[in-house]
């Protein structure tokens, strides 16, 4: 069984079978990570470049670690302090790197569609590590893996995605993935942060009431309020946002069930999540980070075959 695609550009282009294959392969890589030698030789002959045109800590480390655990050779590129700062085009940069015999490209870029553009012009396999406000497919996959690991299944699960849906590539990848795998999704946040036609376009429920969304869901995936994107005044203050959409202990204790709390990080403590929620046993935030490495190993492994001819 193989993936139907040679790139991972987004969850949108994946089939249900692709997603199942990635998740089941990731289970085996999770086992690899528990061994005394947490490494397999599968990508010994593969060289990977991590092209990060936008800041990242977690995702970059996670990919790097996944690559090393697969025995791949890796090089890292950060836009600041590189030729990109001197005005080199994306395509020129990538072609120069590929001429040094690089097989796969992991890329984060602030422009939505940047990896899709690259995929049309270069022979290497491309993995999208986040493009603008479009998708962050490996985050969607690791969130799904974590939900499945914690609750047993995705089919029929009720997942609330809470926060800035408008600017969130994590939300978009999660929605595509959960819908494909038969889960139900409600997005929740202030009206200014939820796209107007999202219910029709993506088949999700919309709620502007946090309590209502929490009462409905099995799992709450809480997104980060993106402070760097808040120059448009979409809500009046962080304090007001926190009062209406911040999740605290009291809210959770008043529910008649124990829901699972997720967050893709980095957390704004006291804004979208209080510390006594983020650090509680209901939270699987650190498991998400741990699972991220296994999921990225699965993606890299499954995409490593096609172009090394």
């Amino acid at each position, binding site marked *: *069984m*193989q993936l139907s695609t040679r790139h991972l550009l987004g969850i949108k282009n994946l089939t249900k079978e692709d997603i199942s*294959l990635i998740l*089941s*392969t990731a289970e*085996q890589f999770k*086992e*690899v990570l528990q*061994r*005394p*030698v947490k*490494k*397999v*030789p*599968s990508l010994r*002959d593969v060289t990977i470049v991590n092209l990060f045109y936008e800041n990242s800590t977690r995702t970059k480390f996670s990919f790097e670690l996944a690559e090393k655990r697969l025995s791949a050779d890796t090089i890292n590129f950060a836009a600041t302090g590189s030729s990109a700062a001197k005005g080199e085009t994306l395509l020129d940069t990538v072609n120069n790197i590929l001429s040094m015999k690089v097989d796969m490209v992991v890329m984060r870029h602030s422009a939505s569609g940047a990896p899709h553009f690259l995929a049309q012009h270069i022979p290497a396999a491309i993995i999208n590590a986040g493009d603008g406000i479009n998708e962050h497919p490996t985050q969607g996959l690791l969130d799904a893996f974590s939900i499945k690991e914690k609750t047993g299944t995705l089919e029929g699960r009720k997942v609330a995605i809470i926060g800035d849906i408008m600017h969130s590539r994590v939300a978009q990848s999660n929605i595509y993935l959960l819908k494909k795998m038969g889960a139900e999704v409600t997005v929740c946040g202030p009206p200014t942060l939820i796209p107007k036609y999202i219910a029709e376009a993506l088949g999700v429920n919309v709620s502007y009431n946090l309590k209502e969304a929490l009462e409905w869901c099995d799992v709450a995936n809480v997104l980060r309020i993106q402070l760097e994107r808040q120059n448009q005044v979409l809500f009046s203050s962080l304090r007001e946002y926190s009062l209406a959409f911040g999740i605290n202990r009291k809210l959770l204790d008043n529910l008649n069930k124990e829901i699972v709390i997720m967050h893709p990080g980095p957390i704004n403590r006291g804004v979208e999540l209080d510390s006594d929620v983020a650090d509680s046993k209901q939270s699987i935030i650190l498991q998400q980070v741990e699972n991220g490495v296994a999921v990225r190993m699965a993606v890299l*492994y*499954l995409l*490593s*075959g096609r172009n*090394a001819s």
Partner: protein
Amino acid sequence: MKTIINQSKLSDLVNKLANQLNEAHPSFNEVVFLGIQQGGVILANDIIASLKKIRNTDKINYGQLDITFYRDDIRKEILAPDTMNIPFDIENKQVILIDDVLFTGRTIKAALDALLDYGRPAKVELCVLIDRKEHRQFPIQADYIGEIVQTNKSDKVKLINGEVVLVTA
């Protein structure tokens, strides 16, 4: 497709291998058995069942080894992995690898690579149902052999549905 070992012959060979293993190892305290996915696991399930009867015990360390991530032809075709299950320590243990068919020896080489990522066994032995001796590509031999079978290199020999079949290319 031709049956080369039918069900009753297979069961005789399984018992023969189990008896050999039983005689070679007076105690199983320091012994662990690992079936190699997938055919080897099917065989190993039967051998372990037989050994449990012979010894009248349930205490046998038995796990499953998957070589997918260690194949030397991995780039030719990316395969989905099988389950790896080694729920015990192999450090300083006597490991007995069990596979259905020993052919080129490449699977066993990969299995040894995988095994060493779990620790340093004192000794590794190999137990196979079928030995296609004349096609070996690596210096690997089995310690316990069900039957040596003459085949052409392009043939495929598989353990399926309780029989060993030969598929001619």
